[in-house]
């Protein structure tokens, strides 16, 4: 981070990809205007940054790219109806915006070496999991981890994001990839069923695994019991929380859950940590 933690780095939008059928999820690929800034922007999967659209403000978005992807920063943003995401969705490649970060903690990519990895995602929340997966399967890193299983689902085939990459992942023989949709259409030949159901079929035992669960609250709510039943200790189930954030550095005071600030102590929490916190999120 720069000297002033409130000042974003100027970046340029290089590419915009519409990710879903509803066209309300877009990926933005950004390049730094100043190469010095890129060097300073050291991040790990799971961290987030504040994206600035000048004149509209900032919003916190998890990084979808992996630090192993040099030269590019990718954010996948859903148009929620908020001021900034709406403005961002109207921007074309070439436009200059700002990025402030990296902020928050990250997935424990070093602590989980040697373990079996379970990545479980639902809908649009797959973004930082994509970062994690891309990091793990990078040739420099892949050997540090044992089996990697990906379970990813969306409401319908059109709502799955990163479709091109999913196809590549499915071709790899060092990944177990399960892609599911809540409701199939006539062209869909993959799995059909909710993520927790698929997880229950796939994950039979803990087996020195660590799980990363991101998705809509209802999906998380039903997936965690599946993992606990399979024998996962709560300390090895990770999830990423969302809160309204402004400063991103633990000062503006709105993203706390009990004494924990999501922007600072999070956004990644283990299920064990969440059990200690009031249910106010």
């Amino acid at each position, binding site marked *: 981070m720069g000297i002033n933690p*409130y000042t*974003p780095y100027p970046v340029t939008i290089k590419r915009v990809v519409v990710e879903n059928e509803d066209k309300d999820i877009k990926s933005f690929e950004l390049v730094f205007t100043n190469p010095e800034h890129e060097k300073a922007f050291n991040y790990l999967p799971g961290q987030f940054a504040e994206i*600035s659209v000048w*004149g509209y403000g900032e919003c916190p978005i998890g990084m979808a790219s992996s630090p192993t992807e040099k030269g590019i920063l990718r954010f996948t943003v859903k148009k929620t109806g908020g001021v900034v995401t709406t403005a961002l969705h109207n921007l074309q490649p070439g436009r200059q915006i700002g990025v402030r970060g990296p902020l928050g903690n990250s997935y424990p990519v070093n602590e989980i070496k040697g373990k079996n990895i379970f990545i479980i995602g639902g809908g649009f929340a797959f973004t930082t999991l994509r970062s994690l997966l891309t990091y793990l399967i990078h040739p420099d890193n892949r050997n540090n981890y044992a089996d990697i299983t990906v379970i990813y689902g969306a409401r319908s085939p059109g709502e799955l994001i990163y479709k091109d990459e999913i196809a590549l992942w499915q071709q790899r023989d060092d990944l177990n990839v399960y892609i599911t949709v809540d409701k199939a259409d006539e062209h869909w030949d993959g799995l059909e069923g909710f993520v927790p159901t698929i997880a229950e079929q796939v994950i039979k035992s803990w087996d020195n695994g660590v799980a990363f669960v991101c998705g809509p609250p209802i999906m998380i709510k039903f997936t965690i019991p599946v993992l606990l039943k399979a024998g996962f200790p709560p300390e090895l189930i990770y999830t990423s929380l969302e809160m*309204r954030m402004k400063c991103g550095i633990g*000062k503006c005071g*709105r993203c706390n859950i009990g004494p924990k600030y999501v922007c600072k102590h999070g956004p990644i929490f283990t299920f064990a940590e969440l059990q200690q916190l009031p249910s106010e999120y």
Partner: protein
Amino acid sequence: MKLIKKNRLKDFLNTLMNYYDVFAPVLKHKKIRFQKISTPEEVILEYSNTHNKPTELFFPQCEVLFEVDLKENIPEQPPKPDKPVIVFGIRPCDARSLQILDKVFHWDGVDDPYYFARRNNAILIVMGCTEPRSTCFCTSVGSGPMDHNGADLFLTELPEAYAIEPVSEKGKAVFEQVNDLLEDATEGELKSLAELTRRAEQMIDSEVNLNGLSDKLRGMFDHPVWDEFHLSCIGCGTCTYLCPTCHCFDILDEKKGNYVRRIRFWDCCMYPYFTLQSSGHNPRPTQKQRVRQRVMHKFQYFVENFGEIACVGCGRCILNCPVNLDIRSILKRLMEVKG
């Protein structure tokens, strides 16, 4: 310790104004608040405490974080203050609140540049409280009317003079600058100083026992007692906007032509919009949750993160709450109930 005679106080302030921008309590539109003075005559000396919090000098209600010229696209910070500042007449409770804010704005070594640009540039001349108000409860939160903590220089009003004590290195430097105006204290004056200090502490009669409160609160998030307090709360921001330790803020862009400025301004946990997410989800949709957040933040969460209560007992929220929802009553009730 030395003395400055009351009739020389004007010279004292004039001397300071040669070297510093001096901020002192003045009367502005019916209320006493800190402002930069241009003559010593503006200074109000007969005050129990200022209406507005003096922390607004360091963390103003609204400030510009940076500006962007859209043609250049490079954020530019506003200039930093150059002349050192003296805050004259700040009360011990408020000086203490600055130490609390220091912790927030320096959390984990991430310094807030705007706050510290002002903070490091300022010298606090603290005025001991010889006439505390009935709503003051500083002694309950680990301070007192003559608390020297956080002061650079400490002043106590005696019948005919002010006792003046340098506390910090910065304070000593100022002490030297005004040395010509100072006199040694007589035995009698020293005695009356000790007497005044004792008397001031005795005068604080609204003691709230907070022993063990933060530990107790840790298990009380879901306690039914929280159903009581919020009923009369109208959800305005008076308590937080006047509280010297409240520091929540919001950030917003304002655009004018080709310029965008990003400002930050006080926000308030009593407002429903404070935590509203753009998806429409609000983790604290009810006033009950918001009142609980305010109390828990000050008396439990803050203690957990910084080892200290985020309340200095200045009583501003008590004096100004439109519905007389008294924080002391809430605390007493929390101490009473079974955890």
